[in-house]
């Protein structure tokens, strides 16, 4: 009975647009869904360092090298704030990381595609960070305070990443024939996976209804995807880049860009672990974790010794 009353109060708070804070009462399902979603978001930031990190040592000039290094560093920072936000819900970072490494927890499937050329660094900034911004701008308004604040902070940096990414794209698009070819091929590879970043279409999205009910999500996957397409198509046109979709056309009546059918088989296959890079990404994370074990143990042992020393 008590819980039903609390639940009713909780729902009134959501309805009034109040922000839920860590010490507030919350239904168990709300907590669970948030932990799943925030930790998945954190894992995506961390795994996302790998495809871009792949080009830090080969960035073509000093300015680009510093910008890319700073970007990947930002992504690590995003991972940290998000793990902290999830920790306010009573899970610790270590257990979340273990869930990632055991394959129990998911991360954004976009990072299971390879970065084959330097152009991919521009395209990831433009399309992948661009899609993330559309999603995270919504999440910055989510009902859970720490998550909404983390997203606000993250969005500010993602906007910068997107700007830098687009600048690389524009430079290559206006460059030599080889650079133009490189950038168009990269866009051809990343366009559809970027659209898949918004998740399954609304009717097939198992978590969406619940997340919407809890005001964690405010817009549907399809709405966000449409917003992204509408924003991005004119940006491509501005630099004479095309998207690999013969059905892409502007609908004068709705004012939206219509696009072709996403290959949902590919989407589900990659989510289940069978994309081009799933194994490699997980192996790289596991290796970093294993190779770093003795370092973490040393830091812990040293901190303990110092603590004992202080107490005596």
């Amino acid at each position, binding site marked *: 009975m008590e819980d039903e009353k609390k639940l009713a109060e909780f729902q009134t708070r959501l309805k009034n647009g109040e922000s839920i804070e860590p010490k507030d009462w919350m239904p168990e399902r709300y907590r669970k869904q948030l932990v799943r979603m925030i930790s998945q978001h954190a894992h995506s930031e*961390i795994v996302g*360092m*790998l495809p871009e*990190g792949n080009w*830090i*040592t*080969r*960035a*073509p*000039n*000093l*300015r*680009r*090298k*510093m910008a890319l*290094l*700073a970007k*990947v*560093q930002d992504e*690590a*920072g995003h*991972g*940290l704030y998000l*793990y902290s936000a999830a920790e306010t819900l009573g899970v610790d970072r270590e257990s979340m990381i273990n869930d990632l490494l055991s394959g129990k927890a998911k991360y954004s499937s976009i990072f299971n595609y390879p970065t084959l050329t*330097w152009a991919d660094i521009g395209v990831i900034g433009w399309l992948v960070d661009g899609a993330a911004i559309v999603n995270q701008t919504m999440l910055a308004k989510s009902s859970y305070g720490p998550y909404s604040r983390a997203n606000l902070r993250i969005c500010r940096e993602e906007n910068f990443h997107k700007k830098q990414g687009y600048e*690389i794209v524009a*430079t*290559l698009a206006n*460059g*030599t024939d*080889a*650079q133009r070819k490189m950038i168009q091929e990269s866009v051809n590879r990343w366009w559809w996976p970027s659209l898949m970043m918004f998740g399954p279409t609304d009717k097939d999205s198992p978590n969406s209804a619940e997340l919407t009910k809890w005001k964690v999500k405010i817009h549907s996957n399809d709405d966000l995807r449409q917003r992204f397409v509408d924003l991005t198509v004119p940006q491509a046109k501005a630099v004479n880049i095309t998207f690999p979709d013969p059905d892409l056309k502007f609908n004068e009546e709705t004012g939206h860009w219509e696009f072709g059918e996403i290959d949902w088989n590919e989407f589900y296959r990659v989510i289940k672990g069978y994309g081009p890079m799933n194994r490699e990404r997980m192996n*790289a994370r596991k*290796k*970093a974790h294993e*190779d*770093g*074990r*003795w*370092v*973490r*143990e*040393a*830091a*812990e*042992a*040293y901190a303990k*010794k110092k603590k004992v020393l202080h107490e005596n």
Partner: protein
Amino acid sequence: MAEFDVKTRELLFNYILGIADDRLILGHRLSEWCGHAPIIEEDIAMANIALDCIGEADAFYKLAATFDTEGRSADDLAFLRDSTEFRNVQLSEQPNTDFAWTIARQFFTDAFYVPFFEELAKSSYEELAAPGAKALKEVKYHLRHSREWILRLGDGTEESNSRLQDAVDNLWMYTREFFEFSDSVKLLYELDIVPDNSALLEKWKETVLPVLKDALITIPEDPPYFATGGRNGLHTEHLGHLLAEMQVLPRTYPDAKW
């Protein structure tokens, strides 16, 4: 802008390149950790220090470029020279064999660069003093970071102690190039443009030895041979591979802008 004669300009060009190359190659090595560090906090710290180093390199390359008779830009100097034209100490190019190697390499470098930039910041040549002063603030933080890790690893577990000992033993022979006081450097020193870096060896030992001792690391005996040659373009085998990777795009597409 100070006026220098042709000979001094050439000496300065090579001298400044030495600093820039040290910082770039070290920064490059650190950046290899990004995404693969033992904890996320270290992914961030390594990237941060790498960024400082590459930023410093950029500033010194820009200054070096003003003395280049071939009119190369900072990027040309970084991306279009061969390994035999690189003037970094061999320590900076040593690989990230494990985290202990990275930390030992960093600590040995920081322990030189803090007093070095302190002195460089006093140069009578303003254009050289300014980036030295800016870099000093950064390397002080780097030294704090590397010193803390030396203590943690040395006085952590048995495994971490033995890994650090191994790194120190292997890298010790690369720790003297910083202090080489060649005739060309001496000429610049006499003009009050650059410090006497040979005088910094004592300071380096004052920083390094007590920390290693506190970290329960046995100080290696001085070997019969200390590595030398980096300042004249002679390197270990590692640098060629590093540059092949770093320079691949500008060299593959010579007419492209990025």
